[in-house]
């Protein structure tokens, strides 16, 4: 589903990703761990099409299509979803209005009928329940005045509504208390399916107790230095990333 080969990405002429190779098959959950500044968000951002990143080398394809050629909105409509590490507050743009526009853009792209206001609200209420979100937040401006935890939950809520085929969750667990973490994890788990892949960026094993990954990768200084099963996350938590680069990277 997602295939990244030797990806090099710079920002402001500073090389950040230095040859990332990674492939994710549908049905799988991958975790990407690594120290601060190692390039995890850069990888997520480059895949989502965030401006300001220059791909200097390498490839990334999504279902066989060159991801790097597409506008961000096209990637999203094709079914790629990135949950932001730092969701953006957008005063004056109503949450429900925004989400309906997003959903209908994707549906239109897929040749499906757009949802009307009634159908949309029914869908959204369902999903809000799943994430135990207060329905009133739908009438607020996007993320405006949301607490850190609410913002993260709102990201997963959007994912639940948009039903992407590939979800990249950038530190969705940070800022969540244990109850919120469980809710978010169950939301994510409910979306696991054979034709969907999920990539979770996290620093902590804690989230991975609830969303058990198939593969864990360790990103250090712009390279994946190690990949392994779910035990790798436990080991990292135990020993830190320091040991990671002495062992061979499975994925390369």
């Amino acid at each position, binding site marked *: 589903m997602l295939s990244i080969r030797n990806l090099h990405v710079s920002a402001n002429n500073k090389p950040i990703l230095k040859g990332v190779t990674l492939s994710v098959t549908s049905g799988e959950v991958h975790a990407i761990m690594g120290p601060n500044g190692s390039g995890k968000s850069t990888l997520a951002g480059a895949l989502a099409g965030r401006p300001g990143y220059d791909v200097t080398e390498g490839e990334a394809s999504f279902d066989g299509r060159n991801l790097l050629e597409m*506008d961000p909105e096209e990637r999203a409509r094709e079914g790629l979803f990135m949950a932001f590490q730092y969701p953006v507050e957008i005063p*004056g743009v109503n949450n429900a209005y925004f989400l309906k526009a997003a959903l209908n853009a994707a549906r239109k792209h897929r040749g499906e009928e757009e949802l009307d206001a009634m159908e949309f609200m029914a869908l959204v209420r369902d999903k809000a329940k799943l994430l135990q979100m207060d329905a009133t937040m739908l009438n607020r401006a996007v993320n405006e005045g949301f607490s850190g935890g609410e913002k993260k939950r709102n990201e997963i809520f959007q994912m639940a509504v948009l039903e992407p085929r590939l979800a990249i969750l950038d530190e969705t667990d940070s800022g969540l208390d244990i109850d919120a973490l469980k809710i978010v994890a169950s939301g994510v788990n409910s979306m696991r399916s054979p034709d969907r892949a999920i990539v979770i960026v996290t620093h902590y094993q804690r989230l991975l107790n609830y969303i058990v990954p198939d593969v864990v990768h360790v990103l250090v200084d712009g390279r994946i230095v190690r990949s392994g099963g779910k035990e790798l996350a436990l080991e990292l938590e135990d020993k830190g990333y320091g040991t990671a680069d002495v062992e061979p990277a499975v994925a390369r």
Partner: protein
Amino acid sequence: MARVASRSEQYVTEFERFARTQGGSTPSWLGVLRQGAIESFGNTGFPTTRDEEWRFTSVAPITETTFARAQNGFDRAAAALSRHDIAYVGLDRVSAAELVFVNGRLAPSLSRTEGLTGSVLVRDLQSMLSSRPGALEPFLSRAIEYQDQAFAALNTAFLADGAVVWMPANAVLETPIHLVFISSPEASPTVSHPRVLIVAEENSQARVVETYAGPRGQVYFTNGVTDIFVGPAAMLDHYKIQQESAASFHVARIQARLRRGSQFTSHSLSFGGALVRNDVAAVMEDEGADCTLNGLYLADGHRLVDNHTTIDHARAHCTSHEIYKGILADRARAVFNGKIVVRADAQKTDAKQTNKALLLSDDALINSKPQLEIFANDVKCTHGAAVGQLDDDAIFYLRARGIALDEARAMLIHAFASDILNRVRIDPLRAQLEEELTEGLRLKA
């Protein structure tokens, strides 16, 4: 300078011709009023950028164009229009009365007043001046101090066309009154001097919408003045929708006087015009009055929009709230000058002013200046100004959810304008303005 003076002479000459045609039916006070106004205009001429009030706005494009008084072609122009042509500015289904003026003059076939109840009066100024001049005199005679208001003086010199809205004491009108000023194509550029008088007597309530519009690409000059008298405990909501052609000139002044315990709200929504100057001046003449000024303006291309507002707190215990927002694209320029005067008597004044501009291009420019003149000591006055651009992070966030770049930008621009538009309390008008905003943005794309 010499050229500017000679340009103003044209208007003086034109005035002499105009005064002759007005002839015998003119009440003497009106003759005196017009004569005084043209003399004042003759003395000052058009303002230049050396005038503090016009520092950033050169009126040369107006003074260098020769305009004929618009009504010359009125009959033909009015006959050529149907209600269908003006549907885009119409508030047909929701207004109690709609007067349509074509090139300054009332077009009865396009107007209707049958929805009016009681003794509420919505009439054209011409007919009021001939049928009930005495009723208008106290208002029109005291309305203007045009020493430094050359354009308002010019309007007063040519005072003849326009509308009168009169709300008797205690009258409450649920539906708005709509005054539409359309400029219609003529062979050469035309000028009109529409004058609107709104009198809201004690404890009355009304909403009045003025719309100014003209065909795309048409060059003309609208020089309007609106006088508003808000009586004790009266409530008046005033909307000015400026949708003039992007090649036209629009200079207009709204001046309101507020009596004890009255409420006045001005919504100034300015979309069109090549060179636009909107003045709004409100005087709180008595205690307990409340004044709100909302403004939204949009300019692109090489257009210039200048908004000058004055809120004069002359008495104690009055409140004012002002928020102006501008959206500027391409090489558009804007001027915002917000003056708040708090007189020595005006203790316990509470005044708040905000002005914000959104610049959609690096070449767009705004000169903004709050001007607080406070002579009382127990007052609360705040002002804030901000100039910004669209938030790139927000745009990416929207795009990352599948929303196209154009649409993402439009959403953010609407969001910027939303608090002004949300204050528009006439639903179909708000919908129409939303559309106008979208349309204005699409032209740019």
